[in-house]
């Protein structure tokens, strides 16, 4: 359900597996985060803390499952040196109806982008912290008063 891997991801193969053998699922939403940068060049480097990072991401999935009427979630996060155009993160959600699938995918990405225990170094060698945009995106989910 949640995997942290240090090799190149194959978003299409993961989507094929995630969509297979479903009869009560009406909606599958997926998000693929790609590394932007100069073509063919290293774009960023990510560090995770094995065990700890998966646990934190699992917490986001549990929160999303309480909040949305979900049937299934699959998250794969790449770590290590990532080149331009390669996938950094895959989030798949399945639900009977599209609103739950879409909102859960959105919720999970907002939390992954700003709260996942991952450390990111840009192509310039500088370590990156979450942006104001990420914090704004995250704050959208707290407007209804939930912690």
């Amino acid at each position, binding site marked *: 359900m949640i995997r942290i891997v240090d090799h190149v991801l194959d978003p299409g193969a993961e989507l094929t597996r995630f969509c297979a053998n479903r009869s009560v699922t009406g909606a599958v939403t997926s998000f693929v*985060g790609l590394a932007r940068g100069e073509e063919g060049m290293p774009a960023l480097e990510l*560090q995770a803390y094995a065990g*700890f990072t998966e646990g934190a991401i699992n917490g986001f999935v549990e929160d999303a499952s309480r909040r949305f009427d979900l049937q299934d979630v699959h998250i794969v996060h790449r770590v290590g040196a990532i080149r331009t155009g390669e996938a950094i993160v895959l989030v798949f959600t399945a639900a009977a109806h599209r609103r739950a699938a879409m909102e859960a995918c959105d919720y999970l990405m907002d939390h992954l982008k700003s709260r996942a225990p*991952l450390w990111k170094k840009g192509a310039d060698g500088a*370590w*990156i912290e979450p942006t104001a945009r990420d914090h704004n995106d995250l704050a959208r989910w707290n407007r209804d008063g939930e912690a």
Partner: protein
Amino acid sequence: MFGRLGDLAGWRERDVAADTLSGLKEILTGLDAALGSALKGVGVQAAVDRAIVRGDTVLAPDAEVAFMPPMSGG
């Protein structure tokens, strides 16, 4: 050591004998003053055996301690 702390230290993992988290920080500061100062920096968290610890704590002989700068997110 994660993120910039690993770059600053020049290493990611090492074995250090210490009885408490505060004692571990003192030992690391003795080895590398710049690292010791960074470990006390804003937003740096410590985890003992993969659980975040605030304040001091006793360390078991085989405890795994992680020092984590502010997380970048995915």
